[in-house]
């Protein structure tokens, strides 16, 4: 039987030098996250182009989360679209920045020899992975946003997209952990600690999103009220007290 089509050529290998070539070069790190994790693992382990990785992962996170944020805010087009596009990168990058010291300190105590810069790069691969999934789901989220009249369904949809994004980012971190381990021959990230830390990230991210609410419905950029996201799950029975207590 005659061959109908020639097999696809193998993909061009990723070289991190490309990260220096403008915005497109920076964003090419996303393609590398999807297809060339071994190269990223090797570069992170050796520290090659680490500064470019840091910048590129940061830029990719910023651009894609801003895009998905705009989709979130399109339920109430106008100022809310701009607010949400500004707020979502703050939530994602802010969560990562808050959780980096915990990751570095406890991972080092558990025996990892990753430097602080390598740790930051690893955490930024997670944020870029989250941003990539958000960007992939953005057209679907947009479609439902413009064709749905009630807020409840959209909130559930966005929550599901974020859960998928974090799960995939966790999986990516797991595979990078193994690649780093193979490249350096030493412990890179403690497996059990990584799972606990991802739970911490999910908790901090949820609280951060709560602090910056609303994203979908109309509202101010910052409400300025202090409260915990747990209150949304279980409304507090007690009224705020005027007196005080201390420990």
């Amino acid at each position, binding site marked *: 039987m005659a061959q109908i089509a020639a097999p696809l050529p193998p993909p061009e290998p990723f070289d991190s030098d490309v990260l220096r070539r403008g915005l497109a070069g920076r964003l090419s790190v996303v393609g590398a996250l999807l297809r060339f994790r071994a190269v990223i693992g090797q570069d992170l382990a050796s520290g090659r182009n680490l500064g470019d990785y840091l910048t590129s992962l940061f830029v990719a996170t910023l651009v894609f989360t801003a895009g998905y944020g705009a989709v979130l805010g399109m339920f109430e087009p106008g100022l809310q679209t701009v607010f949400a596009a500004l707020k979502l990168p703050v939530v994602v990058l802010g969560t990562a*920045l*808050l*959780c980096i*010291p*915990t990751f*570095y*300190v*406890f991972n*080092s*105590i558990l*025996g990892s*020899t990753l*430097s*602080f810069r390598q740790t930051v790069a690893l955490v930024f691969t997670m944020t870029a992975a989250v941003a990539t999934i958000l960007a992939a789901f953005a057209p679907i989220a947009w479609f439902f946003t413009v064709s749905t009249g009630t807020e409840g369904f959209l909130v559930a949809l966005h929550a599901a997209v974020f859960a998928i994004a974090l799960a995939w980012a966790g999986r990516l971190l797991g595979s990078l952990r193994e690649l780093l381990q193979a490249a350096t021959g030493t412990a890179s990230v403690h497996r059990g600690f990584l799972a606990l830390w991802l739970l*911490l990230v999910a908790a*901090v991210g949820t*609280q*951060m999103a*709560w*602090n910056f609410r609303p994203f979908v419905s109309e509202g101010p950029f910052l409400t300025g*009220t*202090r*409260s*915990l996201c*747990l*209150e949304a799950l279980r409304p*507090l*029975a*007690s009224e*705020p*007290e*005027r*007196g*005080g*207590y*201390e*420990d």
Partner: protein
Amino acid sequence: MPSDLTIGAPRGPLAALLLGDTAGARPATLLLLAVGCSAAFGAAIGSYTGGMQVLYAAVKMPLYFLLTLGISFGALHVVAASRLPAGETLRASAEAVALTAAALGGLAPVVAFVSLSCRRADQETYRFLVLVLTASVAVGGLAGVWRLHARLASPLLTAAWVALYQFTGAQMAWLLKPWVNCTFTSDRFIPLQDNLNGNFYESIAGVLRNLAS
């Protein structure tokens, strides 16, 4: 320039402490790290109230660690004297304290964020915050005990040191309270007059008596 904590590849004093490369470390360096990291955690706790309380808690937390170590050091050394000279006792205890403080410092950004998110003057969220702080201190303490156990290589000696340090530390924490000042009427550094009424163990006994009655 390689630090005095460095063994093998050059790394900063904090990284060397976290990785346990402290064989040539000066106790003063370790204690300096403890001061910096515990001050960061103290500031995170104080951020719930804000204002001067951030500074007060940032000063009190290193005081807590250093004064507790200073007061209990004699007993720690006597217990370990058959195994360790005084210099090694100081290094091992300073390393455990510094690692505890470093672990707390690592948690500080998250704790500060939670503190700043908690509703003010609300009993439920205040209790939640106290729970977060207690859990943080427990995690930091576990890290310190783990390192101490690795250094001393004796479960009995480790347990004795932890018991002595905690016995003193509980009263020191009592003396330096408030840690989470929720009165919002005035910032308070160390209301010594109030804190000298009773002590930590008497208050625990009081709580137990109330539960029994």
